[in-house]
């Protein structure tokens, strides 16, 4: 079997697409006062809700077909808004990520019965909760209802500017902190800048960290 590694294989660095949202969740560790508020229990999917050993292949699946989705309406709204900020349309009239249902894909991912994806669940849910809390704190509105410059202000903070303040903090051991570890085997990338310093210095060594290693 020829399994050539190419950069767009579905198996390689699957966390890449969620990395930015992961960075959002990292801020939950940076702003501990805004930690997760409506934590959901991890869904316990019955065996028959898994993909199975002989699924019908020539059929189009949509999120929710196999296992129930678990984001709250509020989290989903924040996720939709965030994906539209991450991937703005090239031309007026182009479909937005939220219109393509990217938030439902994220929901499918974190709600799945597979450890490889559901380990991202706290990253996403706590991050989304933090987004709304931070938006309320700064602008008295939910994230999705902010004007674009306000969304950008928060996003810019997440992308590095604020992190520098905490980069020399002592290692944290909460589960929220573990999300600021980079995925195993990846190198912090240049744009992360200050954030990579956080990754490098405050990687927790507690049992929560092991979750990130396959």
């Amino acid at each position: 079997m020829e399994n050539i590694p190419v950069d767009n294989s579905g198996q390689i660095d699957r966390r890449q697409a969620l990395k930015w949202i992961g960075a959002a969740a990292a801020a939950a560790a940076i702003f501990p006062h805004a930690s997760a508020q409506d934590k959901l229990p991890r869904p316990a999917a019955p065996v028959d809700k898994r993909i199975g050993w002989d699924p019908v292949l020539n059929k189009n699946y949509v999120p929710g077909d196999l296992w129930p989705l678990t984001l709250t309406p509020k989290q989903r709204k924040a996720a939709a808004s965030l994906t539209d900020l991450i991937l703005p349309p090239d031309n007026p009239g182009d479909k937005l990520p939220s219109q393509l249902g990217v938030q439902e894909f994220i929901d499918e991912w974190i709600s799945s019965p597979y450890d490889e994806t559901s380990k991202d669940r706290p990253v996403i849910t706590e991050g989304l909760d933090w987004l709304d809390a931070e938006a309320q704190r700064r602008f008295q509105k939910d994230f999705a209802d902010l004007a674009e410059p306000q969304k950008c202000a928060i996003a810019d903070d997440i992308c590095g500017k604020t992190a520098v303040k905490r980069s020399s903090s002592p290692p944290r051991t909460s589960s929220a902190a573990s999300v600021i570890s980079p995925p195993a085997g990846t190198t912090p990338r240049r744009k992360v800048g200050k954030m990579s310093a956080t990754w490098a210095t405050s990687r927790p060594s507690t049992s929560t960290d092991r979750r990130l290693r396959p």
Partner: protein
Amino acid sequence: MAIITEKELQSTYDVIVVGSGAGGGQSAYTLTMNGVKVLMLEAGRNYDPVTETPMFQSRADAPLRGMSTREKPFGFHDATVDGGWEVPGEPYTQASTDPKQRFDWWRSRMLGGRTNHWGRISLRNGPYDFKPYSRDGLGFDWPLSYDDVAPYYDKVEMLVGVYGSNEGLENTPDSPNGTLLPPPKARAGELYVKKHVAKFGIPVIPIHRAILSTRQDHVNFPARLHPNNPKAQKIIAKAMQERAACFWATDCGRGCSIKANYQSTTVHLPPAHATGNLDILCNAHAREVTVGTDGKANGVIYIDKVTGQERAVKGRAVILAASSGETARILLNSKSNRFPNGLANGSGLVGKYIMDTVGAGLGGSVPAFENLPVHNEEGAGTHVYIPWWLYKDASKLGFARGYHIEFGTGRRMPGLGTGGASPGYGKSYKEEVRQKYGAGIGFAGRGEMIPNENSFCELDPTVKDKWGIPVLRFHWKWSEHETKQAAHMEATFAMMIDAIGGKARNPQADGSKAIDTGGRIIHEVGGAIMGADAKKSVTNQWNQCWEVPNVLLNDGSAFCSNADKNPTLTIMALAWRATDHLIEEMRKGNL
């Protein structure tokens, strides 16, 4: 594929073929085209690529964007049914807990077996590859030569349809004119590599792949395949016309509903079935070969997986082509007073000398590939490859034998991780994704492993599968020949990535860390090696078990070496050759 039910079984068959993949498919094809009545037993379910292949689903149409999961390790759309690294209810075990001594075993439980998803790379073994011991004193010589097999390579290439070119390179055989189909053009990235590695003496040439780049010559091929057999010619001419040429847009690993690539279920079994000489029984898991008072095999006991009942069928000869591991398992489980250690195991070599391919990989990013104008880079996997080029340096390398290199470049169907942009958002983030989309390169080495005493399988003394059949326990150890080869691969890949101005990700200097786990390349061969001496091998050059000449091993189990060339084409060529010999022996009344 029309299959039969147990009620329709005949009381006896000329030949029972166990397994429906490359070896079983070729055996059944050759037998039935020559009027031999065949029963094929397949442990998995019936499978129809024409109606089941997800030709036009995108990754977004699959759960979790088609990512690798326990049940679908090669991704959701991979054409593997009820299998992968695990088969539910059918475990195998490891003799050691050391991860370096693991052997991972890929199985599928479906008609056509692993031919439904394989990479279709179809390289001939060269003359050296059949006489490795004579060249360097390691491993075993085959009891046959390239010239013995060449006519069967010609026939298999014509039958299944293989594209490629003749380059006249050392130990990289050419095919007779008109046998190969034209190869697809090299992609931009492939040409770029070719240009920049030429200074190292590294050749980049079209790969050979079992895919129809054009439709087959259904006018001339049938007579070349089946001289003096008008019925067979007519059947295969019709079957060839039912196959379309590739349109270069879908992933071969999903299978092919238009029959443009080779899989047993679209190429071997339909014409075999059209002869009227083939019965196929699915969900029939062979447990053991039965032996008569004359010491010859006379049938097979199988488990009907639907009812869980044990059943027996009778035949004048038995061909095992259940995959190397499964074939060894069946032999070891076929114990009788006459064969207390398993069938055809007087030499004690059943299960011994199992081999995989040496695999190591390295990826990198290549600025020269960034922001290329958008153009069609679809196709069939890699269009070129690098055959082993250092035959003259054998004494200087520190390891025996060699490897070929496959590599992937360009934009493919996007998936998670496409582009590999830095964390960020907005317009600049999108631009970075577009810039990096298709600017990666991945090299994979595929090299020869020397058979060794420490790599073998045996029956686990306690563990049984859900049908009560003892399972295989694997022992595995790479020798320094393999680990040093893997280190050489890594250094070569890093050198090539550097030569194209790219940045390699993580070259691994330690070969024992670079090398893939045993079995991971899914080129499992050996376990019942052929040889010239009945005391030192399990079969003769005709895949016939020395002790039970009416049992043939027509999968990779009889391989006594595993050249860097991917084994499937050779499995088919040897199966055809062995089956021709079986037919001749049956006609002469020798069996």
